[in-house]
């Protein structure tokens, strides 16, 4: 009798042990009800606040869209403009959360910071149902902000060394004037191009050099790349933000990924240079991270 009890105890423990080990290897599905509820909640939020511009189908064709420019985002292909991941990659939720929270100043996207936080997260889950990409891919890696090599330069050194270098990079190496306006004369550009060993490209300097070049984005909307001395930037409020924007590019447009394409010193120099252009509007970009 006692033997029997001991046997039951032993086998019981053994079976439970094996089951618990096996249980670790089982892929339990996501709790589907909760997921559905979040998306359903997000749908309600979307229909209350977003549908006017972004449209019921998430195609950016809401009733108000006709009068807006830039046009509201079309969610159906999962491409967004202002992210921390390299252009074209799927964004992590946090990128979308920031845009929902702060809006995109200069576009018709307002800030939704007073919307309850749960509703903001929920609406992001709903937005992700418009594009199939979200089932197929995973979000990209945010680009890393390299340590600023000029962080300890004095303002005079920044003015006399870093900004001129940025100007040379802007006009000679990255050729930003292909779309953005140039801020120096055509002769000076030719000089900068020679400096980077690309003198032969001086022939491609466009005549309306000091104006933004009209371009078209992947959604077919007319687009003028910003003139930094005049237009507001939509996703930049610090030096690091500007670095990320130049580094990560702008999804759906001609603005490429510069991170890894040019040396870090040049990338930072052009960041300082653009910041100096923005300063002409009286806006001084602070450094977000303490040194």
């Amino acid at each position, binding site marked *: 009798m006692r033997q029997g009890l001991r046997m039951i105890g032993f086998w019981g423990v053994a079976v439970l042990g094996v089951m618990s080990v096996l249980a670790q290897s089982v892929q339990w599905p996501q709790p589907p009800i909760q997921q559905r509820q979040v998306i359903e909640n997000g749908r309600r939020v979307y229909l209350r606040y977003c549908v006017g511009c972004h449209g019921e189908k998430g195609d950016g064709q809401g009733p108000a869209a006709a009068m807006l420019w830039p046009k509201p985002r079309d969610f159906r292909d999962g491409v967004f403009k202002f992210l921390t991941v390299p252009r074209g990659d799927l964004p992590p939720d946090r990128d979308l959360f920031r845009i929902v929270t702060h809006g995109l100043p200069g576009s018709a996207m307002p*800030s939704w910071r007073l919307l309850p936080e749960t509703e903001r997260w929920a609406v992001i889950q709903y937005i992700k149902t418009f594009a199939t990409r979200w089932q197929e891919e995973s979000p990209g890696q945010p680009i890393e902000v390299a340590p600023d090599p000029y962080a300890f330069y004095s303002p005079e050194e920044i003015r006399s060394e870093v900004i001129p270098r940025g100007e040379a990079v802007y006009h000679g190496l990255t050729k930003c004037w292909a779309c953005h306006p140039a801020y120096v004369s055509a002769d000076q550009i030719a000089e900068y191009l020679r400096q980077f060993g690309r003198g032969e490209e001086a022939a491609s300097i466009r005549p309306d050099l000091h104006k933004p070049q009209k371009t078209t984005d992947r959604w077919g909307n007319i687009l003028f790349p910003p003139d930094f001395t005049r237009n507001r*930037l*939509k996703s930049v*409020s610090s030096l690091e933000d500007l670095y990320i924007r130049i580094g990560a590019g702008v999804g759906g447009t001609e603005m490429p990924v510069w991170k890894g394409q040019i040396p870090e010193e040049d990338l930072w120099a052009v960041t300082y240079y653009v910041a100096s252009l923005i300063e002409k509007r009286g806006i001084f970009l602070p450094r977000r991270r303490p040194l």
Partner: protein
Amino acid sequence: MNTRWLERASATLGISGFGFFIFSVVAMALGPVVMLRKVPMQTVEQISQNVIPDFYDLLVRYPDEFKKYFGDPGDPPDEAKMRQYFAEALRLGRKVYIAEGCWHCHSQFVRPLADEQLRFGPTSWAAEHQNELQLPPLFGTRRVGPDLIREAGVRSNDWHAAHFYDPQAVVPDSVMPRFTWFFEERKVPYENGVKIVPNQRGLAIITYVQWLGSWVRPPAEGVPLTASAAEDYR
């Protein structure tokens, strides 16, 4: 006690009619005026020295209408001309704001209460109302829509245009009426041949609304990409 003298026309007309009324005006109305005497009233010309960026944006967005209704400031825009047009637009915008009774549903002062500071921005101070465009003051008495004194730059010009044209198209829950008479049709070679653009009153009211609070507009450019998580909730 003989109170018969209180019942004569001389007392009711003289003491209560003139006396008490003048006392009330001196105490309750002249008091504030005297206290604010050192904050001079700014004229529209003084205000319009700082042309708001949104006014330049209107020139970019609606160049034909801008030139038609205000004038051609040239390219790049001549600053003196822009100041002059800006003053014009502010005056007309305020007139439209009053004519349409906007101030019955939108207030123009933020009270020193936590929820209003979080929702709208810094509390109002007396000097920001000491200008010609607050003559008469547009404090407002009711908020069916939100307060507007911190509206500058919160939304873009095209948002305002779409919203004035059909508020429910932009904000489905809005109860604001449509102001289709701020708009006209322009023939364009795309988008089914017709585009709805603001007319003079439309440009003016957008300018006026974008001006409200432009003096406390934060210098920030846009979304703080590298903000810490805690900052997201500001």
